[in-house]
């Protein structure tokens, strides 16, 4: 079973900032939070990973509060090409990641 809970779907207009929140109430001390993006007919693609506080890269930002029971993926100024399924996962390096159904983001012109 997936160790995270996230919304099934979200809609956004182009140019808006999108925040996808993920719950991981039972996260273990050694677990990291990792987000993947998947386009149709492709394998998931690693977006960002963090342990606590804030991580930012060229694609997204990841916010993790001090209790680490949730995290928020922030996509700045989305475009139509950001339409995809986004997966939030928690885990350490010792066991394979368990993927849930993810959040289907639809960006509308």
């Amino acid at each position, binding site marked *: 079973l*997936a160790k995270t809970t996230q919304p099934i779907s979200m809609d956004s207009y182009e140019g808006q900032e999108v925040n996808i929140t993920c719950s991981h109430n039972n996260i273990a001390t050694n677990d990291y939070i990792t987000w993947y993006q998947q386009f149709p007919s*492709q*394998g*998931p*693609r690693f977006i960002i990973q963090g342990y606590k506080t804030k991580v930012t890269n060229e694609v997204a930002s990841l916010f993790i509060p001090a209790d680490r029971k949730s995290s928020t993926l922030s996509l700045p100024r989305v475009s139509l090409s950001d339409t995809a399924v986004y997966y939030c996962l928690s885990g350490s*390096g010792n*066991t*394979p990641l368990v*993927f849930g*159904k993810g959040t289907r983001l639809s960006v509308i012109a």
Partner: protein
Amino acid sequence: GAGVSQSPSNKVTEKGKDVELRCDPISGHTALYWYRQSLGQGLEFLIYFQGNSAPDKSGLPSDRFSAERTGGSVSTLTIQRTQQEDSAVYLCASSSTTGVYGYTFGSGTRLTVV
């Protein structure tokens, strides 16, 4: 290689036949994973190889499924006596450590059992 390579990209087979799916991970990646994804669903873990350790087969759905990894590199997933419910996209991923820094996935093999 530059990425994870899977072959074939598409496979149509008759019910009852055996199929082999191949995964060529990124050179130097010690961990290799197989997942499958049914239409509109999330990824289902199948099997995990880490270095020379015994593989974690806990996700294999039946004894018709098996996988091996030769020389710590290329992996083959074999499905014997295929059934229609085996139709899915089979995804392979590799990682450089034990996955903490993210997996690199291949584009998958779309298996259709008719």
